[in-house]
């Protein structure tokens, strides 16, 4: 039987991303395991079982092991892991929250990650995103679920300078968003002659 391999939806854009200058760098993040956690009440028990204090403030994320724990709603989080297989992460998280009335669902195939780095990242993002991305309010640890262009995204701030952002986007919207980002970055790539 043929082995089913997951292909990345942005393979065709790799060359275009590599031609971008450092001020608007776009790199495709490798696949990571992602689990959507629903948990009504969180406290010391949940933190001990999961090994991470789930963020309770809206619009935040925290590092969790090799991955991240992202606030998605008052009772919903996204847990990622770069070292565990999706089914391992799902089984571990499900075992941790099942006794607390929570649930865990593998959503690894739902989103892919794009990492945007460089001094012009904020100038690119604000062309299609209405929320305030100034480092004063969108510093490391901040996250936002919003729309970028016409695509629903999760933005994660990785630096306090506003020059390092991860964009999580649904795999089926990745091609559209890649085209949109390249178009938005165009003015910062064309040399002035």
């Amino acid at each position, binding site marked *: 039987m043929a082995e089913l391999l997951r292909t990345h939806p942005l393979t065709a854009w790799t060359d275009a991303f590599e031609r971008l200058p450092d001020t608007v760098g776009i790199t495709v993040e490798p696949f990571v395991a992602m689990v959507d956690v629903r948990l009504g009440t969180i406290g010391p028990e949940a933190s001990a079982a999961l090994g991470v204090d789930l963020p309770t403030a*809206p*619009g935040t994320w925290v590092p969790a092991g090799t991955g991240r724990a992202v606030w*998605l*709603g*008052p009772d*919903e989080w996204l847990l990622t892991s770069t070292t565990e297989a999706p089914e391992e992460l799902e089984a571990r998280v499900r075992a941790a929250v099942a006794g607390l009335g929570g649930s865990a669902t593998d959503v690894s195939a739902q989103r892919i990650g794009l990492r945007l780095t460089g001094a012009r990242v904020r100038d690119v993002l604000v062309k299609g995103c*209405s*929320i305030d991305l100034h480092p004063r309010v969108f510093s490391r640890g901040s996250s*936002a*679920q*919003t*729309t970028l262009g016409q695509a*629903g995204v999760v933005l994660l701030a990785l630096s306090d300078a506003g020059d390092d952002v991860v964009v999580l986007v649904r795999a089926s919207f990745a091609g559209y968003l890649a085209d949109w980002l390249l178009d938005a970055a165009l003015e910062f790539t064309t040399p002035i002659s």
Partner: protein
Amino acid sequence: MQLIACPWCGPREEVEFSYGGQAHVPYPDSPAELSDEEWAHYVFFRDNPRGRFAERWNHNAGCRRWFNAIRDTSTYRFESVYRLDDPKPVTP
């Protein structure tokens, strides 16, 4: 574009939200005993005031949570937003 203040995410653009109709419509105490006409009133009949109206909204593109809002239907101004488990604010 008008901003709507999601109780969880803060002010966001109106296009991120969807409308959910009138808020505070109580589910019938004993649904089995309702007549067809009473069911129709519960399912389909809603207030349509000019002025302040308590409505349900959903933050689709953000946290995907439902919340309630008091909106003036003649000016489209949102006077307050509150979570589903909060009581309806008293308006003058």
